[in-house]
């Protein structure tokens, strides 16, 4: 399958290239007060207001200061049945590459620092392991936002 590889901290992740719409350099980010930390901002993507998700937080990593390499991967993902445009904040984008589907193995039960539900499988490229993200799962389990008016 064709994937886009990207870096979070020291690890390489991949997501299906078919859902990627574009990759942006960092743009001005608007914080959304009282939103859950994972989606606490919105950005302007070609006149659309798009939620920005910090992927690091899904994997128990600290928020990190933005660097020259920081990119926003704009993807389209179904959220409760509705195709939604979402920006993913990642530390680095590598390339679009091919991973043989049969080389993707199931997620090992142990040896992963983060919860395995967001990983569809582990692929190999050369000597590197690539974690193939299960994007739908990531957004399916997105915690219900803190409701400002329901307090």
């Amino acid at each position, binding site marked *: 399958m064709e994937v886009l590889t990207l870096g979070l901290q020291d690890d390489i992740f991949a997501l299906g290239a078919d859902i990627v719409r574009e990759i942006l350099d960092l743009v001005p980010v*608007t914080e*959304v*007060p009282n*939103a859950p930390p994972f989606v606490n901002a919105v950005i302007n993507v070609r006149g659309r207001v798009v*939620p920005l998700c910090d992927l690091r937080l899904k994997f128990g990593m600290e928020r990190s200061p933005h660097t020259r390499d920081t990119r926003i991967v704009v993807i389209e993902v179904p959220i409760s049945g509705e195709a*939604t445009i979402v920006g993913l904040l990642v530390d680095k984008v590598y390339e679009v590459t091919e991973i043989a589907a049969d080389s993707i193995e199931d997620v090992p039960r142990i040896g992963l620092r983060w919860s395995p539900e967001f990983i569809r499988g582990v692929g190999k490229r050369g000597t590197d392991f690539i974690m193939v993200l299960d994007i739908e799962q990531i957004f399916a389990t*997105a915690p219900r936002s803190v409701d*400002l*008016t329901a307090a």
Partner: protein
Amino acid sequence: MGAGDPAETFRQEAQELIEQLEQALLDLEQTPTDRDLVDSAFRALHTIKGSGAMFGFEVMAAFTHHVESAFDQVRKGKLQASPPLVALALEAQDIIKSMILEPDTDYSSREKALLDELSKLVNGEGETGVPGSGGAGTPAVEAVSAPSQTQRWRINFSLARDALVMGVNPLLLLDELRSLGHCTVTALTDLIPPLAEIEAEGSYLRWDVVLTTDVPRSVIEDVFIFVQDDADLSISPIDLPGEGRLGEILVDRGAVSRLVVEAIVASRPPLGEILVEAGQVAPEVVKSALAEQKHLIREQVDSAKEAKSSASIRVPAERLDELMDRVGELVIVQARLKQLASSNGDTQFKAVAEEMERLISELRDTTMTIRMVPIGSLFSRFRRLVHDLGRDLDKKVSLVTTGEETELDKTVIERLNDPLVHLIRNSIDHGVEGAAERLAAGKSGEGEVRLEAYHSGAQVVISVKDDGRGLDRGRILAKAEENGLIPPGVKLPDDELFQLIFQPGFSTAKEVTNVSGRGVGMDVVKRGIEALRGTVDIGLRSGGGTEVTVRLPLTLAIIDGLLVRVGMGRYVIPLPTVEECVELSPQDDLRSTGRSFLNIRGELVPFVRLRDLFASPLPPDPYQKVVIVSLGDSRVGLVVDQVIGDHQTVIKSLSKLHSSLKAFSGATILGDGSVALILDVEHLIEWVMEQSDVALLEAGE
């Protein structure tokens, strides 16, 4: 428009006609003798039949023909628009509607039953032309709107020399001619003598009048009835094909022979001048003939115009959405232009930017009004509902509507239909009592449901009121306890108790009727309204009865907003909710710790710090501002760091990931390309109220 399936176009047209028919029928029930209503019903039926046959709905057309024939009898005064006839016609209308929407179904039995009824009703009252079964042919009924014979007349008159002295006013004559039809008047001055010979009060003018009218010659002659003895009058019909060239007109008037004209035309135009020079006609005659030519041309142009203006255009809603999107983008670009212009010293550039701003904001308003539809179109649908419900439940109920002209976005109106149907059903089923009970309670036997709509600030309020038995506190309480909505023995104030009605699964109807009371109703209503970012409340009317109030934002794609800054973030407050901006004085600032009051011209206004609500990490600006917002009767100050200015705000909805954040109704894109969130003032105030009720009570003492 678009890739129009002609049958689909007809369906849309028929939909409107059927609504028109329904209105007319329902009104006829009230005033059976109103000729206009009979005509309106007849016309609708006639057009449905005619267009239907054209688009291949032969069965429907044949059926409609019989109903139309019955109404033709009514028009001719041979039949009364009695309630049974109206009821039958309403039923027929339903069948017609089904036939159009589902042409493949077999309606013959329904059709037959209704036509039998109809012919029973009509028979004995004269020849009706309602045969037992409908054929495919649709005999033409006399065209109601066919124009009578229109004829052009050439009228030439001059008054007696002493006519003015005798009190004749030529202006009145001309006005009278004008009232008969399209009219071009040319005054001819060739008989005016030199000044030395002129009689000051003499009448020397001649008039050439070209009149297009459908009245007979005698009517035109009648205009001159009091002057014709002395006047020189000629009236002749103009029989010119189409364009009416000058030469033709002159020949037709006998001013010149066709041969002369043809010879000269062959030489070269302009014809008028040549003829005059050639001494064949007097300049005055040419002038008059030219006027006649103009008359003809104008008539053609006018009729073309008429055809254009009478045709409204049907546009798919998606195209309007697209247009709105484009305008939205334009507004965003405009914001950038404005920002550039303000940081640029070039005055010409600034002037252009300002001009653009004005144009774009007009374009925005125009585009928005295209989408706005008066709510009356929705209200009128409910008349039938009330009519039928009253019949099914054997209650006499009338529907009174006000504020039909209140405009709302088309999509909002469409999505309001189901909630309002529920509310009206509830009112009639649960609220309004049967006639006997009403009379026993000292009310009139006929119940009343009122539908009202009006603007209130940035909201549209729609209320459904009835004069029925109101809400039964005991039963609501019992039901709520039974369903575990509240623990037993709890005392609740009325408004909170009544809100329980909107809880899922709540229904106080003792038995399930086919009208309402299936326990899905009010919660569906509430969800439907909330999906439109509106609110719904229920309460008792002071005079008895129940009142349900629906408040909706004027959900437009673009609003005027006030741009403010809180910490690093910029937010838009919808301008219609903003009352004023004041500075937060250092004393007020210091005196309050969490929330407090401002003294606005002697009135206490509580204020809340947005920086606290939004957990801004930055220290506040030294001179903070308070934006006073209002919704209904409550006023609240929102403390911000800076008021930046007004902003044309294109509303972009937030994604599902943020949809539960009720404090924001959406977001917008600013001139520099960054995003600002739009405050949902109502939800914000609601939340602040709940939070600070206790604090306010303490502070108020």
